[in-house]
């Protein structure tokens, strides 16, 4: 055997498709290796004779490389570029080597070769499936303190990253007429066929290059060419067509409703030095009119004693490593098969100079053509035999072969064992699309039966084994019509599912069904014995198929073993659901652009930068960033708020009210519409006037509130709470469009049209006077609750005389782009007069001093207008409004409902805790009877004491009573009061 020394002693000169001159260096567990470009980590390590790659989940058994693809259950590794770019649980059979890659094995301590956890293997008789349900219960506390932490540490495979991922990820929505999943012969042909008809086509394959099975199957010719070469040429043709998108290194991971598919494209994981602009991965969210599934099939392993040693590998994998990567998986290779396909692997290896110990075929009569070829190559075939055991510690060293039915066992030295139990059609995506499967009894496999979406399966995943038939099927699926010839050397037959000879119900050997989770055939039998008769119960009890490969290899075997135990046909035992994703998908990919500033829009008002410039601290209110308070040098929050509160009442304050929701209600029936939506009556409101309105839903609970100004007979300027704006508009549209469509009225959101500058306080008029034109704002001409369209600094404005502070106040609405200039001018005038800027915290305190409620804080969706002391806003004259009936329900009119009242602490210095619960007797035993809770509580600088609002059962009748608010560390005595703490006669607002 001739080898290329630097890229591995198992590299075979002339074999494979990689270029010997193009190398890459990487390390595995600290040791440096040379690979060829195009190697996977698996092929590169195999080239150096490294088979031991990891340890299993439960027993920590040494494990190697089983497959050459995404179905790999064993060879999971940790791949890193640097400390932050570290990825656990990567399949070595998928990860392409790049120069500088740092690869590490997982789930072992202190080292891969000597793993302390392997002691679990000795205790494995104890750790049978489901053992933990039966023990670890005594003493009661020990589960939490001892057993569970121990189990948690032992479980888990890779180590999660501990640093923030510096890479970025992209998202792309796309549409196509036909999406073809899989670019083997079937997928390429279907894509070619669809593309020829002019349809827009996506052709998607998870491998770096198209070709699918042609990667290993060198004996197939298409259109007279070597299959793999045909595939590459066809892909090039397709890529050149404007209506075709070819995506490689891209997995269709989910097939969802209505032709919607999730794809993940791996953009840089194979690149040594990726450009900074490149996303690491890209999520494609594709809506396809039609889907062609050409996902092929996956080879199964044989289930026999100790079938998990490093060096035991699927036949197609060994053939891929040889024919694509140019790597021999051993020098003395055994074959154990129930299917013809493994023979071709043996033939290829033999021709490449590898010694074949024997082909052990559990079938009595393999096909004559295969036997003839084997004879010709000098390979011994033991038909009707089985491998009943293997030897070796960190790698297989021998196989024990026996004639079926017993006797005649002998040990044969091997350094690799190639296995095949046949092929499982990849119906995962079909099943995800909610198609229904049928069981093909002859070939022991599930195949697509009833389609739920516009979708068609072709080729291996449809159970179509004959190449010519497959090509015809694919052409038809694409909608085109042409001829294409294809030939392969052998027709494959055979296959088995379930435990092989020597691992049957009468044995106690460890014959692995699910490698990663260490589920053996006997575990599955135990589950059945314990009454788990549904395949879902068996799955959950044994965890078969629940590892990171999601049962791609193990499900069918598990099912067959269960069926045998239950003595039922397989379709009656059922099949566990194939859930998305097909292979694991990085969170970052699913998140895409939605991180940091793009996680959720941070809405800023037009004056945001000016507020920030004045030192504002901001708070999140819904999506909005609102100025919270404006600390001056040395001030903490309380000091700043106290100063702002004082200043507003003594001089004036300027406040940014822009986030308030605004809706323009226009049309001849506008007032009539508002009559139905609000509890108040609107017909009597004259143009130029505004009114505070309450909105309920049909249930009669307060939904939103705000000031509504009438600008003209047919035009209202409605305001809502900041957070309520979108839902209020939706609620109004719902009634307008579906209940009251006869009304001639239209709604438009104008929240963002207007920048709102509130000027509140005794000097408010003096401050704004010079800027306002077109309206007389004297107290007489423009009293409280007036509204006018006018001009402020020469721009068209809407001026409200309105107050949420109880002071003389105005709210200037100017078109948003003018907000900053107007704000600046007003502040420049106000500041020298002794006014302040104030934020939401001061706004909250000032309104609480006046007993004005905040919907969502003092009410919570269970409060009626009457409960909130706003019964005056419910019209008793209107024949109808939304909420009129709900308000009359028995529980809404009963005595003793919680009502909003004021609370004053007996000790004026104590500020209650918002959310504090109120009781009549603080010394009662728990559970206590609670009367209500504190909804708002502040230090009121203007009152010189603390104040609070609360919802209290029968609250208004309790005014004057003493109640208690028991907090964690003390109980506060309070008196129930009315809700107005400042300027009780309300004179200031009219000043």
């Amino acid at each position, binding site marked *: 055997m001739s080898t290329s020394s630097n890229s591995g002693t198992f590299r075979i000169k002339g074999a494979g498709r990689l270029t010997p001159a193009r190398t890459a260096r990487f390390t595995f567990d600290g040791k440096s290796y040379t690979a060829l470009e195009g190697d996977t980590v698996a092929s590169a390590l195999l080239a150096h004779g490294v088979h031991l790659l990891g340890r299993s989940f439960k027993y920590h058994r040494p494990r190697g490389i089983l497959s050459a693809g995404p179905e790999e259950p064993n060879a999971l590794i940790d791949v890193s570029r640097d400390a932050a770019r570290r990825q656990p649980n990567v399949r070595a059979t998928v990860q392409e080597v790049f120069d500088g890659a740092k690869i590490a094995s997982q789930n072992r301590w202190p080292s891969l070769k000597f793993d302390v956890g392997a002691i679990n293997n000795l205790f494995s008789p104890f750790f049978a499936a489901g*053992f933990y349900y039966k023990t670890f219960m005594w003493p009661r506390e020990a589960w*939490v303190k001892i057993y569970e932490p121990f189990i948690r540490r032992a479980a888990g495979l890779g180590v*999660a990253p501990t640093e923030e991922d510096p890479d970025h990820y992209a998202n792309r929505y796309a549409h196509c007429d036909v999406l073809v999943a899989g670019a083997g012969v079937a997928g390429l042909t279907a894509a070619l066929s669809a593309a020829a008809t002019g349809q827009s086509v996506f052709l998607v394959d998870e491998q770096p290059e198209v070709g699918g099975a042609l990667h290993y199957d060198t004996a197939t010719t298409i259109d007279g060419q070597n299959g793999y070469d045909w595939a590459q040429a066809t892909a090039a043709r397709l890529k050149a067509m404007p209506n075709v998108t070819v995506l490689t290194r891209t997995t269709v991971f989910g097939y969802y409703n209505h032709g919607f598919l999730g794809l993940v494209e791996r953009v840089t994981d194979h690149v040594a030095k990726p450009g900074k602009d490149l996303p690491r991965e890209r999520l494609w969210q594709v809506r396809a009119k039609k889907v062609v599934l050409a996902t092929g099939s996956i080879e199964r392993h044989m289930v026999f004693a100790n079938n998990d040693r490093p060096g035991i590998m699927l036949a197609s994998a060994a053939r891929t490593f040889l024919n694509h990567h140019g790597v021999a998986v051993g020098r003395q290779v055994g074959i154990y098969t129930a299917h013809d396909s493994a023979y071709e692997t043996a033939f290829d290896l033999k021709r490449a100079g590898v010694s074949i110990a024997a082909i052990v075929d559990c079938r009595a009569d393999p096909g004559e053509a295969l036997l003839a070829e084997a004879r010709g190559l000098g390979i011994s075939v033991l038909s009707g035999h089985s491998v009943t055991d293997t030897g070796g510690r960190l790698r297989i060293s021998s196989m024990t072969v026996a004639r079926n039915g017993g006797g005649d066992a002998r040990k044969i030295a091997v350094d690799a064992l190639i296995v095949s139990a046949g092929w499982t059609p990849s119906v995962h995506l079909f099943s995800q699309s909610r198609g229904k499967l049928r069981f093909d009894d002859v070939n022991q496999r599930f195949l697509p039966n009833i389609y739920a979406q516009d979708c068609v399966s072709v080729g291996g995943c449809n159970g179509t084994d004959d190449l010519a038939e497959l090509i015809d099927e694919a052409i038809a699926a694409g909608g085109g019509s042409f001829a294409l010839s294809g030939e392969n050397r052998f027709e494959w037959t055979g296959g088995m599912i379930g435990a092989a000879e020597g691992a049957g119900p009468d044995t106690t050997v460890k014959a692995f069904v699910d490698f990663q989770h260490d589920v053996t055939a006997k575990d599955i039998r135990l589950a059945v014995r314990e009454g788990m008769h549904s395949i*879902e*119960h068996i799955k959950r009890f044994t*965890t078969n198929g629940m590892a990171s490969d999601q049962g791609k290899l193990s499900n069918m075997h598990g099912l067959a073993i269960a069926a045998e135990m239950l003595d039922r046909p397989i379709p009656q035992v059922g099949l566990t659901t194939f859930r998305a994703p097909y292979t694991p998908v990085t969170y970052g990919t699913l998140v895409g652009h939605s991180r940091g500033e793009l996680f959720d829009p941070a809405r800023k008002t037009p004056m945001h930068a000016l507020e920030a410039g004045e030192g504002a601290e901001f708070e999140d209110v819904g999506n909005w960033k609102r100025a919270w308070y404006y600390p001056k040098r040395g001030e903490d929050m309380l000091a700043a708020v106290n100063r702002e509160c004082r200043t507003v009442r003594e001089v004036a304050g300027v406040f940014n009210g822009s986030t308030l929701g605004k809706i323009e209600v226009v049309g001849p029936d506008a007032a009539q519409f508002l009559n139905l939506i609000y509890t108040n009556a609107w017909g009597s409101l004259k143009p130029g006037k505004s009114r505070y309105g309450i909105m309920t839903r049909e249930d009669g609970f307060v939904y939103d509130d705000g000031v509504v100004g009438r600008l003209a007979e047919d035009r209202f300027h409605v305001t809502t709470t900041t957070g309520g704006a979108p839902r209020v508009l939706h609620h109004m549209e719902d009634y307008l469009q579906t209940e009251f469509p006869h009304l001639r009225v239209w709604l438009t959101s104008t929240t963002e049209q207007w920048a709102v500058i509130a000027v509140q306080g005794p000097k408010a008029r003096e401050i704004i006077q010079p800027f306002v034109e077109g309206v007389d704002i004297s107290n007489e001409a423009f009293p409280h609750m007036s509204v006018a369209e006018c001009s402020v600094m020469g721009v068209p404005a809407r001026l409200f005389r309105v107050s949420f502070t109880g002071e003389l106040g105005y709210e200037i609405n100017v078109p948003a782009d003018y907000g900053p200039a107007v704000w600046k001018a007003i502040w420049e005038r106000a500041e020298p007069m002794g006014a302040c800027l104030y934020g939401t915290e001061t706004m909250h305190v000032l309104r609480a001093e006046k007993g004005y409620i905040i919907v969502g804080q003092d009410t*919570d*969706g269970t409060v009626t207008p009457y409960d909130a002391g706003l019964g005056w806003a419910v019209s008793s004259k209107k024949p109808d409004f939304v909420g009129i009936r709900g308000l009359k329900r028995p529980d809404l009119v009963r005595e003793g409902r919680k009502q909003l009242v004021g609370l004053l602490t007996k000790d004026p210095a104590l500020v209650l805790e*918002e959310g504090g619960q109120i009781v009549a007797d603080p010394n009662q035993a728990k559970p*206590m009877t609670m009367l209500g809770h504190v909804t708002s509580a502040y230090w009121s600088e203007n009152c010189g004491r603390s104040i609070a609002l609360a919802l209290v059962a029968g609250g208004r009748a309790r005014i004057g009573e003493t109640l208690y608010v028991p907090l964690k560390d003390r109980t506060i005595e309070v008196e129930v009061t009315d809700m107005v703490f400042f300027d009780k006669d309300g004179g200031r607002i009219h000043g």
Partner: protein
Amino acid sequence: MRRYSVFAVAREAMRAHKGWEAQWASPEPRSAYDVIIVGAGGHGLGAAYYLAKEHGITNVAVIEKGWLGGGNTGRNTTIIRSNYLYEESMDIYEHSLKLWEGLSQDLNYNVMYSPRGVMMLSHNTHDMQSFKRHINANRLYGIDNEWLTPEQAKAFVPPLDIAKTARYPINGAALQRRGGTARHDAVAWGYARAASDRGVHIIQNCEVTGIRRGPNGDVLGVETSKGFIGAKKIGVSAAGHSSVVMEMAGVRVPLHSTPLQALVSEPLKPIFPCVVMSNTVHAYISQSDKGELVIGAGTDQYNSYSQTGGLQIITHTLDAICELFPMFRRVKMMRQWGGITDNTPDRSPIQGVTPVPGLFVNCGWGTGGFKATPGSANLFAHLIAKGEPHRLAAGLNLDRFRTGRLIDEAAAAAVAH
């Protein structure tokens, strides 16, 4: 029934575990039972167990359309807590939590109740007000729930990002230390085993297709895919399918069934010590004993019985998870799935009598049913046995939708002003 113990396991280990008996029997149905419970999830199986154990009623069948524990019991993210706001809710969830604490021993089945703590993150003033309202109410009711500063929260959950520069910075958290998780399948299996041991029949793969009523309107039994089965009393506990079953008796319940999705990551070494929830950014996360990060997503917006949902629900949830825990961006989603939740208008459950004599209902648990399993089952058994609700479940009646006396936990956490 053979008791489970470490000695039993050791003994079986020496004989290849061939001596274990079936955990529950799979009998053919009798012609009639004293009580039929429709739905073999945790609630239904548990109710049967408590009927037998606490009320001496053992002639009971639990009828299941599919496989036991295959509905929401086996699909949820296994969060357990009792720090609800209203007394009606605290009553039932705390009753449940107390039963969780001794459930493994009671059932002789390790349900792996793990009180590792449930932490709810507060991101703004409104959250803080709401959480403190809960914390105070819980404390006065005798339920543990405490306020943590951001630093204390970070100390409890090291991966948490408490940077002030985050899009939604964390300003504190509420922690219920007795909250946590349990192994969902074990709950169904443990109840099934214990109920079966006391004589309860568990009839799987038997679909209820009708409810037969007598001339007086009272229930006579159920029509099923295995024929008519008589019963004096019927308890419906069918989660997402409850309204379908109730409709068979002509009873309408205010439910809508929506998909709820969840996902797990590949297994990882321990990194996440408790359960973390955030209402503001809509996410919750914990790590299973196997090492998978278990993440609950939101509900899809429409009614559906499909047990599937949109990818956008998953991505939206992961946006939030990765914002709270940026180091998880390279972690991979291994499996996603969906269940059907039955939601009531006030997001609180319905458990009580119905207008049909002999018919009892337990439904509307929405996204919170798992944590309530032992408590709900225990009180449902009381309801069925006595014909009237237990004091702790009295407020969960159907009549509240007529009177307006709702238990509106959702409204209580109302949207920000």
